């Protein structure tokens, strides 16, 4: 009975957690409550590193990627957005976000057991360490070989980067105070719930059978859609389509994209939650899809515009990183290549054609790259998933691509879009009505660096 439950639990649990379940299943299969599991230093080492890598994705990675695409007068303000979001979400996550996302709770939301990270240090037992059990006490519990503090930190870096990604959509025109308030609200009311639905072993979206290796829905579709809504609510930048809004210094964007790439190894290979073959495979597919997408965008641009651009190749690479995220641990290298090429070409089209057709000003293409790339990846994961990569003793077939899986993926995508769009819209309106979302026309003209922060690049 337990086995059967377990089995279905495995099928439905976020794929992210599969290998751990597998590794620990002999212990779990026993009737008696298992002894507290020990940590594995190799796995813990890799997860500590992955945490550092994912933090590096936001600061300085994303900060530079975005700052490199704005005009000189907004470079520092754009850096400030990523850095401040990093600080704010850290505190929000510590106060309540982690508990809401990963506390056991119900299928719809976690609980308050870890508010202020209460008890997070309990895994240290006189110099030895206990591995973390996610959803402890439920039949779907997942036991890990790393301590809870490391799991919490790893997840924190995901919670940080998601709102920071949104900032690409409202660059060069949002009030800093509005950004602060919106970030707090959005993190608690949009990010934490969706993370719980998808990644908690009892989350209701996980229960629908969708798989998401490292956060295609929770992070990228979520951020992309919130970005789109923000761009629509805020309206276009002054001079959009007329003035020269060209980037000040793409060097920063190249550094940023490169650090995103390197850091993404922590994001994707780290989502194996251990230093094992699955991490190696996730790193492999990540590398291949990213390269393929960079080349895809570059070639599409070369054909369509006559020149390959550096902004193009790095944008494509980021699109590829996004698209492979939900698939990384489930697909073979050949599939990664296809996912990458598709992501590169389609994101190119989204950022250069779709955006102009629809007429919104998503300044740095948070939606065009993260939203679209995330959707491509989530759907293609349902097509290309290769069973043996996620096969375990308990689930010897693993998860394979199929029409049914594709439908599950589409459901998860739809749910994420719907909740995120609606909640983001309401939050933005609240902030707008209270403290106002957008800077004044004069501030926008003079630049946010001087007017909001009193600083500038000399």
């Amino acid at each position, binding site marked *: 009975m337990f086995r059967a439950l377990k089995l279905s639990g495995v099928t439905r649990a976020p794929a992210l957690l599969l290998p751990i379940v597998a590794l620990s299943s002999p212990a779990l299969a026993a009737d008696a409550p298992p002894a507290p599991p020990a940590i594995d230093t190799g796995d813990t080492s890799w997860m500590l590193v992955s945490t550092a890598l994912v933090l590096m994705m936001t600061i300085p990675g994303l900060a530079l990627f975005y700052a490199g695409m704005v005009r000189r007068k907004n470079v520092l303000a754009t850096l400030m957005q990523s850095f401040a979001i990093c600080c704010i979400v850290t505190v929000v996550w510590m106060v309540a976000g982690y508990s809401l996302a990963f506390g056991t709770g119900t299928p719809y939301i976690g609980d308050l057991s870890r508010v202020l990270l209460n008890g997070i240090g309990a895994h240290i037992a006189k110099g030895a360490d206990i591995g973390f059990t996610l959803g402890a006490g439920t039949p779907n519990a997942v036991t890990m070989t790393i301590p809870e503090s490391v799991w919490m930190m790893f997840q924190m870096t995901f919670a940080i980067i998601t709102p920071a990604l949104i900032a690409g959509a409202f660059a060069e025109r949002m009030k800093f105070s509005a950004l602060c308030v919106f970030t707090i609200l959005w993190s608690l009311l949009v990010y934490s719930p969706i993370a719980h639905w998808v990644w908690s072993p009892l989350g209701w979206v996980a229960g629908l059978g969708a798989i998401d290796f490292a956060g295609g829905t929770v992070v990228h579709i979520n951020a992309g859609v919130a970005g789109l809504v923000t761009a629509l609510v805020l309206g276009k930048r002054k001079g959009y*389509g007329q003035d020269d*809004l*060209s980037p000040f210094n793409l060097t920063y964007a190249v550094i940023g994209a490169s650090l995103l790439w390197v850091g993404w190894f922590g994001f994707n290979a780290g989502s194996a939650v251990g230093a094992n073959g699955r991490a190696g495979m996730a790193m492999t597919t990540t590398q291949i899809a990213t390269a393929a997408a960079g080349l895809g965008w570059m070639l599409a641009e070369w054909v369509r*515009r006559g020149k390959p*651009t550096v902004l193009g190749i790095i*944008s494509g690479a980021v699109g590829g990183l996004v698209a492979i995220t939900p698939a990384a641990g489930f697909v073979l290298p050949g599939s990664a290549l296809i996912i990458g090429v598709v992501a590169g070409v389609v994101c190119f089209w989204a*950022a*250069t054609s779709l955006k*102009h057709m629809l007429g919104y000003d998503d300044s740095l293409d948070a939606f065009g790259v993260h939203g679209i790339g995330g959707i491509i990846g989530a759907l293609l994961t349902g097509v290309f998933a290769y069973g043996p990569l996620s096969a375990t003793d308990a689930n010897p077939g693993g998860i394979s691509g199929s029409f049914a899986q594709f439908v599950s993926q589409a459901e998860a995508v739809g749910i994420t879009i719907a909740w995120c769009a609606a909640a983001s819209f309401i939050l933005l309106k609240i902030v707008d009505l209270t403290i106002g979302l957008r800077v004044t026309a004069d501030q926008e003209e003079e630049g946010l660096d001087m007017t909001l922060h009193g600083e500038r690049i000399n």
Partner: protein
Amino acid sequence: MKLIVAIIKPFKLDDVREALSALGVTGITVTDVKGFGRQKGQTEIYRGAEYQEHFVPKSKLEIAVPSDLADPVMEAIRLAANTGKIGDGKIFVLDVEQAMRIRTGETGDSAL
């Protein structure tokens, strides 16, 4: 005294400086400028947004010279800066009423 203002292609700067030095000119002030003229700028594309760059980078030289040097200086610049291609630039001559060397307070031609 005259002020010769010349707008030239940046990579010709060293040639012009040498030509003027050879003429005995002892001072030049150079500014990086952007020029709009017959030579059109390029189209830049950033994520599908085309920006017509109307301006091309140029160097502006200002050279104050005794009046009698004005013509030779113009000629020297023309020869040194000429590539025969569009965008080579212009030379303007303005009258200078007075000049002073800050270090010494000298005025007139001896200030140059």
